[in-house]
């Protein structure tokens, strides 16, 4: 009897703990979304739930109308879409090559890719700046996109290679007997099976580019190439922070990554954890 009530207490404890975790992880999202929908004066009234005048999209209109938000949003979108497309394509080819062909120096190349993760980005940016300056690419989409490609590619290739490693080569062999070449096999046979791996890589590249602050802060020199992360930082650095619009701008900055994540969620989780559990 006491064993049973003990068990009940333990189960209750587990639920309580889980609720704590849920609050810790989700509360910031809920709070920023809720705050972004309140009239600005209500934010400073010291009340959690009192909302005279109801909820509103006013902050969103103000965010979009002011402070170059539209321009920054378009810059960010353009840069991260090009980055994502290029990284995904190159990682697809490179990852397939490293997974399927027994190339000389293969292990060294993989080592080099992984060790690129170990370089402090704050050190990388110094030579990057010199290169971009030398090629007159400072303050250009090209300069920023090239930087983001180079940043996203090594880990992207590693992710995709890991996924291809998990796809049996018997499919390749069957297709080869049917007379398909390597490229044909990749796109017609392996790609459909490895689509989750491709999705993970694309999402990773998008995240790297969309969220980057460091490299844009140095390579961008004017509002024509500035991205949302820089915009948010400028917003936050203002002497009189306008919390209404900045909260709305934050939600708009987070939204695209969450929407993409929602679509690709199952694959991303699988792709990210597969590398750590195969051992």
């Amino acid at each position, binding site marked *: 009897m006491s064993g049973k009530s003990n068990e009940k207490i333990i189960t209750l404890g587990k639920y309580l703990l889980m609720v704590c975790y849920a609050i810790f992880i989700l509360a910031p999202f809920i709070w920023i979304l809720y705050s972004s929908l309140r009239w600005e004066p209500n934010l400073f009234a*010291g009340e959690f739930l009192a909302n005279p005048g109801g909820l509103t999209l006013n902050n969103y209109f103000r965010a979009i109308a002011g402070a170059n938000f539209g321009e920054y949003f378009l810059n960010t979108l353009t840069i991260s879409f090009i980055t994502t497309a290029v990284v995904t394509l190159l990682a697809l080819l490179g990852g397939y090559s490293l997974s399927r062909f027994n190339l000389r120096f293969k292990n060294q190349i993989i080592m080099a890719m992984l060790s690129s993760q170990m370089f402090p980005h704050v050190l990388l940016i110094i030579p990057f700046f010199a290169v971009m300056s030398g090629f007159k690419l400072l303050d250009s989409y090209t300069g920023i996109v090239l930087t983001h490609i180079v940043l996203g590619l090594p880990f992207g290739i590693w992710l995709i290679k890991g996924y291809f490693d998990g796809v049996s080569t018997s499919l390749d062999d069957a297709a080869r007997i049917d007379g398909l070449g390597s490229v044909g096999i990749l796109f017609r046979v392996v790609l459909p099976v490895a689509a989750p791996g491709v999705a993970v890589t694309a999402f990773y590249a998008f995240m790297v580019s969309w969220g980057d602050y460091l490299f844009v802060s140095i390579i961008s020199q004017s509002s024509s190439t500035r991205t949302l992360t820089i915009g948010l930082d400028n917003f936050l650095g203002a002497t009189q922070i306008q919390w209404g619009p900045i909260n709305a701008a934050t939600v708009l900055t987070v939204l695209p990554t969450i929407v993409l994540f929602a679509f690709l969620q199952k694959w991303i*989780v699988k792709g990210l954890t597969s590398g750590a559990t195969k*051992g």
Partner: protein
Amino acid sequence: MSGNKKKDSFFSRINIFSSFLQKRTLTEKKKITGWLMLLPVIPAFLIVIIFPALMGIINSFTDADIVAMTVGIGAEFFDIVDFIGFSNYMDLFTDGDFWEVTLRSFALVGIAVMLQYVLGLILALLLDEGLKGFGWFKNVIMLPWVVPVASMVVIFNWMTAPNYGVVNMLLETIGLEHLTTNWFGSLAFAFPIIIIMHVWRNMPFYALTLYAGLSSIPQNQYEAAEVDGATAWQKFRHITLPNLKYPSMVVIVLHVLWTFNNFDIIYLSTGGGPVGTTEVMATEVYDMAWNLNLMGRAAALGVIMMLIMMIFSGMYLKLVGGDV
């Protein structure tokens, strides 16, 4: 009988030989395709690894400033800058707050990774319990990880704002108004909040990785232990933990690297302040290079970071072994 056998082995040898030839030409042809597929990637690696490493090291022995950087990578660079030997390194070691900042970087990595691991492991175990009503939680758990750092910083700034932040409002509601403070501007709390942001962002990654590890433990190991009358703790200690060894190591070493390398969480939230109490190596490099215009000394500090990273990565590659 014996003659027949000889004949067989003779023909099979020819067969093996000819298929060997066929295979060889096939692989040679395949290999060229393989290299072609890899071709666009190789310059990227040269740009991202060899060149910056070399240039970073060269810079660290010069008195370069931003002007020297703007001339690009040609020979002109060497006309502008002077080589000053180990001066930058000596300056770092003797004056300035190098040791304090380095120690803080280690403290940040140590505390954040430890908290993330313990909390992530507990969450993984809870997820593995399959509590009713919480099935959806696995699907949203990675959300903090996908949020851009700049947005996370705004969210935490807003929640901890001095007068109308939700944290202070909650403290007032439960009668603890003497604890309310300007959290990010506080000497005592700025660093802990930065650790909390790291935990919020990365702990779910640990939880999912370890959860995936838990799900792959064969159930019969637990059943066998139950037959032997093992307690819950014994099962955890002798079955769960050993089985999680590999994913634990990978996730810990990856985050040691990411946390040590991370620049924007601290730079965007406190900028290293108040009065340097949250300054770490990464933010110091950025400040030296772009705000104080000491490129050479910044590069020297960056090279020291790189060396520390290399020790970490050596550990990591040894762990992962050849199977990368």
